[in-house]
């Protein structure tokens, strides 16, 4: 093994607490050590000059990787190096000089062990991504994201499951809470989109296959188009289950007018977001029809959002706890429908408006009824699996690694925007889309560095599937081979957390930065010193 040159720093009170000369004497007699020097400080220009041209493995005894890491990386140049924190982990926390010196010696021996057992050539690798993006879903989030990306010069492919662009924007009347006309907003997004040159739009198209490739992902679409992209944006939005608020808004927008009393029938599993939107609609209606009865029927179990009651009261909107007594009866009029999408009657309009006076002794509700149900994510399960995005029970994509990368990144190169995360107001959706677009661009430009991934020794692997089950990032995949199942770890997803490494029953997984060998060597050198 290559011999190591040690440099110790005298600065930052290290020399006061640790007897560096003693350490020097100790390590001079170590067979692994070529030389050991004590410098006044390691983080200044003098040290850089002193170390210029030095070659071989270097061990620094100084300070914290996180505060001074960059300096030592520069200092080492292309040489392999290891930084041992003699400051925060020793000099600053121990008072007794003898003890501190002994501990420093231990720390340095452990650093030496780590340096000498570290596998070579396992530096971080560049994520050289193709500047092309696939956006799934042409709702407000998707469209806004496409627009922002296209403006920044990315090639964009937009795919939409249905035959029309617009998503939720097509189905709602106004944008909550700004009150902007949905149609106008859609046209704004859409027209701007049409002017952009780099956007390819496929309608009635879905993603059918996703594989990793060298510069991103290879995607196969249902219209047999195959392409390679550097990033994927999931903007699949939300869907109403057991309710028809969106349809109501759509009809309302379509007809432009509305008559008769209106009831909002709230379901037990209502999404609070829908309640707020519905109240907003009710208030708008109230402005148009000051005399009409508007009632929310809310089951006892539903907790109303803050300010809901007050808002309703202010606009003379009733809230009745319980379900509609006697159900809906005596509906005499039917709102006309467009034949489009063959939707059946959703909003029923009475000729004469009569209704419930109180909860007791009433036969039923005569008037229009809008149901407020659940809101769920719109991404098909298989697609979520293909994208390795975990979903919660309502079909929303779970934001992972929020501690490390807040906001939007699920996996490198895969982003989720808008309602697919959780229902959010339209404006927020659009802002979110812009943020994501900016992040994608930044990612392309940064040529981001990635840690090397855990590696599997195929010979040793017995295909037990533990790693695939335990990995929080879905990095390992079990593949069928001639010799049985074997696991493979995809480097793009692995964070090298080590969960699978320590648990693999046959020690088949290898950590390229801190291998078992390194840990063992560290423990041994700790034990010996």
């Amino acid at each position: 093994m290559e011999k190591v040159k040690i440099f110790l720093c005298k600065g930052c009170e290290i020399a006061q607490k640790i007897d560096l000369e003693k350490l020097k004497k100790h390590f001079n007699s170590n067979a692994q050590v070529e030389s050991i020097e004590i410098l006044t400080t390691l983080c200044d220009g003098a040290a850089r000059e002193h170390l210029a041209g030095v070659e071989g493995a270097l061990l620094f005894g100084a300070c914290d990787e996180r505060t001074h890491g960059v300096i030592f990386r520069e200092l080492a140049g292309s040489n392999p190096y290891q930084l041992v924190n003699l400051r925060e982990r020793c000099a600053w926390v121990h008072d007794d000089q003898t003890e501190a010196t002994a501990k420093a010696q231990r720390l340095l021996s452990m650093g030496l062990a780590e340096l000498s057992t570290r596998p070579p050539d396992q530096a971080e690798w560049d994520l050289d991504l193709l500047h092309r993006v696939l956006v799934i879903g042409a709702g407000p989030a998707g469209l806004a994201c496409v627009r922002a990306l296209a403006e920044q010069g990315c090639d964009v492919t937009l795919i939409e499951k249905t035959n029309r662009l617009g998503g939720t924007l097509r189905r709602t009347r106004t944008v909550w809470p700004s009150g902007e006309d949905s149609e106008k907003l859609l046209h704004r997004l859409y027209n701007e989109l049409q002017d952009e040159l780099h956007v390819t739009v496929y309608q009635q198209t879905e993603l059918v296959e996703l594989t990793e490739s060298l510069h991103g992902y290879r995607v196969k679409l249902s219209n047999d188009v195959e392409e390679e992209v550097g990033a994927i944006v999931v903007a699949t939005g939300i869907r109403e289950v057991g309710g028809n608020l969106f349809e109501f808004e759509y009809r309302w927008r379509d007809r432009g007018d509305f008559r008769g009393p209106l009831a909002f029938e709230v379901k037990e599993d209502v999404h609070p977001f829908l309640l707020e939107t519905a109240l907003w609609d009710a208030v708008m209606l109230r402005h148009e029809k000051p005399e009409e009865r508007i009632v929310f029927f809310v089951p006892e179990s539903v907790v109303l959002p803050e300010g809901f009651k007050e808002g309703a009261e202010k606009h003379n909107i009733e809230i009745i706890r319980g379900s509609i007594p006697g159900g809906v009866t005596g509906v005499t009029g039917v709102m006309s429908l467009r034949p489009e999408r063959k939707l059946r009657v959703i909003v029923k309009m009475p000729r004469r408006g009569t209704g419930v006076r109180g909860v007791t002794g009433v036969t039923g509700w005569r008037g229009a009824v809008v149901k407020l149900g659940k809101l769920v994510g719109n991404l098909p399960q298989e697609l979520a699996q293909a994208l390795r995005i975990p979903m919660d029970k309502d079909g929303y994509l779970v934001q992972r690694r929020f501690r490390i990368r807040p906001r939007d990144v699920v996996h490198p190169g895969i982003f989720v925007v808008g309602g697919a995360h959780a229902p959010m107001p339209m404006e927020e959706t659009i802002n979110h889309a812009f943020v994501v677009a900016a992040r994608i661009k930044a990612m392309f430009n940064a040529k981001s560095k990635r840690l090397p991934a855990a590696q599997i020794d195929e010979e040793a692997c017995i295909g037990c599937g533990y790693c695939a089950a335990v990995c929080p990032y879905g990095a390992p995949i079990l593949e069928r081979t001639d010799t049985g199942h074997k696991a493979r770890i995809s480097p793009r997803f692995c964070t090298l957390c080590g969960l699978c490494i320590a648990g693999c029953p046959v020690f088949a997984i290898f950590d390229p930065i801190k291998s078992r060998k390194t840990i063992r060597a560290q423990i041994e050198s700790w034990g010996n010193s």
Partner: protein
Amino acid sequence: MKILGFTCDWAGFALDYAGMIRQKYSADITFINLRCSARFDMVDGVQALANGADGIFFALCPLGDCHYESGNHHAVSRINHFKDLLQIAGLNPERIGFAHADTTDAVGLKNEIESFCSKVKEIGDLSSQVFDRPELVLRVAAMKRVVSSEPVRWTLSKELELVRKGNVFDEKLDAEAYAQLVRDLLRTEYHKGLILEQLAEPRNAVEVAQATGLSAHRVFELIVELERETRASFDRIEHERPLYVEVADG
């Protein structure tokens, strides 16, 4: 007193922070950084004991706050299994300790470290326990066999599946039942380890029983199992007693 610490990178922040605000703690403890605490393998724990650790301490993120989603849950269960193993081997499980620390919780972590170090000091040197040094070496060697044995690692890797499936019925009971299952397995494997340590040279069961302190009946039972697992084999008959020997690996 030698105490080895393992810290995840993130609790390591707290440790560095403790340095920054000069929170003094005992110099007996030296930390090794692992990226996530779940990287801890019992193999490393036994290695530490073999290298003279009187105590082993873990610093990890608060539960539910793991930077790798669920890493510290796995780590805690591994640490608990490791404590069980110490107990089985007749060592004081209090020698293993852990603390959850937020990245900024320097003072809290320092206090935990201090109280752990003084506790280990109270318990005393590992080799100062009732038995002598060679006995300790023997026990650690048997433990080493346990933690790298396939049945143990295999069962531990099934924890996810078994306990999660159990959740459908009754979470607590099942987790406890599983822990008991692991304890039983660890005990059996530990005894097998002790026996195998004696079988480097051909020996009969009675000799092994004397050397290990296990009952002759238990030794017989386990040798039969070891034979079935092809980890030990019948060698020859001497003085009308069958001799067994360990099967070399591979």
